[in-house]
């Protein structure tokens, strides 16, 4: 676990079915608001990852056209090389003609082998896409399938397929401008940032304690580890796992204590810079910390992505 850069890494798991070609070839794709290309595995690909997924066969589609260009797409879970082409793409009952998409040629990344989805459908801004053709969203607009380039996510509380609520939110929608037309970046007013307390801190506690929450309590009582002062400076995670994370205020780091472990009479001090990990891994033009609002946030707040007005809306989900 010491090698883990961020616990949410490799944790995308909302997939939808699309089809490409004539007759349609079906794929399960990750709906990704952080990228802008559509790609699926293809029969050109000889990588191990492609053998484990549905592959698009261009020779089996009467509407396929080759673009001839190849690009490399970069993701956190790895990169892949795609050949661009055009074909009919169907998303639910929306039919898009001559949509540019990537046919994977090389998928060297191990994670793609294990992915339960075949490809990725990017829903971010065109500036983030390779190639010069419209993204899926743009094509829907240009071909008159949508009246506005708006999409939203709603996480149903009900059993799927039953009691689906036609009302997605209650109260007012809070709108905020997109601050960078690449991915869906908006500003957060507060100065709090995602900061993780070093995982290494948690391991000694769990190793020496009996197990779980009670063990950690005994450590707090004896004044060992960070848990003594965590309630004052840190918001402790409810999880009792060794991967527990804590959130601290960026402005508090300088005032946080140096923790000195004394082992066999030798003091081993640990400054706050050592035990606080800034989990922000993206550069920010303004220098502000960047969060990624995942499904935990989206479940609570119905989120609207309005590309036409370059804004996002948030309202309490029902």
């Amino acid at each position, binding site marked *: *676990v010491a*090698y*883990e*850069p*961020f616990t*949410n*890494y*490799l*944790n*995308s*798991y*909302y*997939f*939808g079915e699309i089809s490409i070609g004539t007759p349609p070839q079906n794929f*399960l794709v990750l*709906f990704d608001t*952080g*990228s802008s290309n559509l790609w699926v595995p293809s029969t050109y690909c000889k990588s191990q990852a492609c053998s484990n997924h549905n592959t698009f066969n261009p020779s089996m589609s009467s509407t396929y056209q080759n673009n001839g260009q190849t690009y490399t*797409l*970069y*993701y*956190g*879970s*790895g*990169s892949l090389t795609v050949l661009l082409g055009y074909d009919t793409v169907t*998303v*639910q*009952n*929306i039919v898009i003609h001559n949509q540019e998409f990537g046919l994977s040629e090389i998928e060297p990344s*191990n*994670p*793609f082998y*294990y*992915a*339960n*989805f075949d490809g990725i459908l990017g829903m971010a801004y065109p500036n*983030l896409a*390779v190639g010069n053709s419209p993204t899926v969203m743009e094509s829907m607009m240009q071909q008159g399938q*949508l*009246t506005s380039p708006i999409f939203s996510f709603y996480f149903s509380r009900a059993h*799927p397929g039953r009691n689906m609520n036609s009302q997605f939110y209650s109260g007012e929608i809070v709108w905020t401008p997109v601050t960078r037309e*690449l*991915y869906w970046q908006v500003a957060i007013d507060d100065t709090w940032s995602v900061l993780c307390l070093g995982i290494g801190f948690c391991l000694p506690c769990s190793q020496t304690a009996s197990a779980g929450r009670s063990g950690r309590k005994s450590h707090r009582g004896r004044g060992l580890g960070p848990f003594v002062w965590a309630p004052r400076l840190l918001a402790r995670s409810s999880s009792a796992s060794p991967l527990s994370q804590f959130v601290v205020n960026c402005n508090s780091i300088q005032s946080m204590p140096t923790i000195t472990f004394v082992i066999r009479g030798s003091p081993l001090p640990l400054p706050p810079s050592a035990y606080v990990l800034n989990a922000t*891994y*993206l*550069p920010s033009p303004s220098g502000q910390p960047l969060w990624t609002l995942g499904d935990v946030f989206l479940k609570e707040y119905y989120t609207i992505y309005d590309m036409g007005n370059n804004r996002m809306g948030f309202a309490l989900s029902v």
Partner: protein
Amino acid sequence: ILYRIILKKGKSIRQVMEEQGVLQTFLKNHPKVDPGAKYLFNNDA
């Protein structure tokens, strides 16, 4: 016009790799994978 596209919650890559016992080895051998790499297209971000 409102189109409703049903998404399914499947297993994440992390879950599958954990179940197959390859996650820790992967994380150990790829310590510097940047989850934000897709945002750095052409390094212009």
